[in-house]
């Protein structure tokens, strides 16, 4: 350690050499984890706004919910899809636990989580196509508008999270994935996974 301060002007020269123990600053958690957690909190509020708007709109609808001439939402198929997403979250959690002990053994569960996540998004897309064919569009009713808005917003988050996870999977294969980065991505994926059942319950039923 060098001499601490060079004086400029009236300030005292203060030598703290030798008195300062190896200075350390404490971190509550890795930066990435905290940053992601805070971001997730803001996101939760965003979805809270959507959900409460949806709940209110449901009761102001002029002709019932869903409107009589609109298709009903595919509740059963989506239940399967929901299960896939939850499994993906569980797989990632398992991958992280394994990762802390043995990096290489985390590859398989990580890949499973990634593929299940991709399956969820793809299945959503297929569902959307059939709904569009049946006449549920953004402008056909408030019901449709809310469906595409909320589910679409969630899907965007899922796609973003999957891209991050895919990049991390590459790092994992190269043995370069840091625990902080993994933990941060995991927090975000848990948010995507955990948000979905709530949306499923509020939007589809």
């Amino acid at each position, binding site marked *: 350690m060098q001499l601490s*301060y060079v004086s400029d*002007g009236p300030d005292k020269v203060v030598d703290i050499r030798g008195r*300062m123990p190896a*200075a350390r600053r404490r971190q509550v958690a890795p930066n990435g984890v905290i*940053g992601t957690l805070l971001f997730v909190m803001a996101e939760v509020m965003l979805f809270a*706004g959507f959900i409460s708007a949806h709940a209110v709109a449901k009761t102001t609808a002029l002709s019932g919910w869903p409107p009589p001439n609109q298709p009903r939402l595919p509740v059963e198929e989506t239940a399967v899809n929901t299960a896939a997403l939850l499994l993906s979250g569980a797989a990632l959690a398992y991958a992280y636990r394994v990762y802390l002990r043995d990096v290489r053994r985390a590859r398989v569960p990580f890949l499973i989580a990634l593929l299940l996540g991709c399956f969820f998004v793809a299945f959503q897309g297929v569902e959307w196509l059939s709904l569009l064919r049946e006449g549920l569009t953004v*402008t056909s009713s*408030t019901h449709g508008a809310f469906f595409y808005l909320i589910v679409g*917003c969630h899907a965007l988050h899922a796609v973003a999270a999957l891209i991050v996870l895919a990049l991390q999977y590459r790092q994992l294969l190269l043995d370069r994935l840091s625990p902080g980065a993994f933990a941060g991505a995991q927090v975000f994926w848990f948010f995507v996974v955990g948000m979905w059942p709530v949306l499923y319950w509020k939007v589809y039923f």
Partner: protein
Amino acid sequence: MAHPITEQQAPHGHADAHHDDHHHEQSFWSKYVFSVDHKIIGMQYMFTGMFMAIIGGFFAYAFRMQLAFPGMSVPGWGHVSPAEYNSLVTNHGTIMIFWVAMPVLIAAFGNFLIPLMLGCDDMVFPRLNRLSYQIFLLSAIVLLASFVVENGGFGGAWTAYPPLSAKAEYSLTPLGSTLWVIAVALEFVAFLMGGINFITTMMNSRAPGMKMWDIPVVVWMIVLASILFMLSVGPLIAGAIMLLFDQTIGTGFFDPARGGDPVLWQHLFWFFGHPEVYVVLLPAIGIVCEIVPIFARKKLFAYKTVLFTAFATGVLSFFVWAHHQFIAGIDPRMANVFTVTTVMISVPLAEMMFVIVATLYGGQITLSVPMLWALSFIGEFIIGGITGIFLGASGSDIYFHDTYFVLAHFHYTFFPIAIIGVYAGLTHWYPKMFGRMLNETLGKIHFWGTIIPFNMIFIPLFLLGLAGQHRRIWSYVNFPELASPEMQNLRVFATVSLVIMLLFQLVFIFNFFWSLTRGKKAGRNPYNANTLEWVAPSPPGHGNFAEMPTVYRGPYEYSRPDRDEDFWPQNVPAESSSS
């Protein structure tokens, strides 16, 4: 997620890729335009904010002239048509809150002060920080563009209540309102990034030895404000997306004819809108709490009480938002609940004022320019605070809602926040930012030339409000009761005061740029202050500190009887210089 508490060696408190380029010569572009340095980003926010303040002030001049001399061609603007008038008042409000108060108070001071006061070399996410400023700049450009598109800027008031804001056939500004919503949404995204950065930095990058209760109040306040912002902005972004869909692709979220609900927007908007007031208020109070102890040479009275009242304000701020809707559209029974909470929020805020006043007791007060600003904050904000009670109390709000009384009230809160708070911070940290002192005489001329006209603008407006004058009205000639010569004289008086106040701002601009090169050189610590930013050179270089400081005590140890000097910097060990 069971990480052990990670510990890192002192200099460079975070492991980020950019610290390789410390102490290298940087090109102009990478140093000032695409910089990741928190100080430069803070300056960028500050200058953008000040530029927007000039525009906002000019708008105020244009519409005040129209009110004082209806129909006259305003010098520098021309005739103000009703559409222009609406657009001017709408964007004056939007600019002053979102593009002046937020960027300067939170982003500029937050970026500049947080790493310096915490004793680290930069924010934890420097590149996110740069992105935050770039998005903010983009939002400002989008907003400015919305004034010059066909049919003019958005004129549906800064609250943007649909259906007016949602349908072009009502607002008659199809492009203006869309750009306005986009600009506001982008701006929120920018501050969300900034806020995440501030909070994480405070949690993870404090100097060794700095505990929770050693953090200077202004850092606490900016972080609390960021948390409030982060938690309240989500529903409004949701609403903004819905509004944007209504405007552009023709959904009917807020259209009652198609099963939507206009009241819904008010809920989403005010859920953010009221905490937003505290988002900008808390940093301003934080700045005052930094300045008063230094120029009174006193320890801040009851540091923890200040923080506790700030926490209480933060919590309560989520319970008060619906008071904006007493008249507009909530269940009247709910109004009772929100009256209780709104009036109750006066308690922590009053307590904060008491704390600062109590700090003055027994002090050695120097009325320097920053101290004048800080003290005037207290004086003006007390008036703003007590007039708020009239509006929070549902019974009297029936009359006062949307009158000039409201307008005068919130200018008595926002002016101290966005103008006085900013000037206080700017004059106080100017030596640290630029290494030179501002001219004291010019500073005092500017101070009195701002404070006196400010009161002369808004006291008449209180009277006009009491007499029942409503807001956002282009001209009062059509309202027989409001067109009386006495009332018109009050309007002229307020307008003349405004022009005087705006002219005095030139003194500050001159002082600012003159002192950049001609001011007296400021040493490291011109005020004999305690907090860590005064340990760094003025202006601090890239990386801030020659040697990363270690913290031994709280930030306000002034005039301790057991020491010769009347200050005791946070980083000086106990034995080193005591008698």
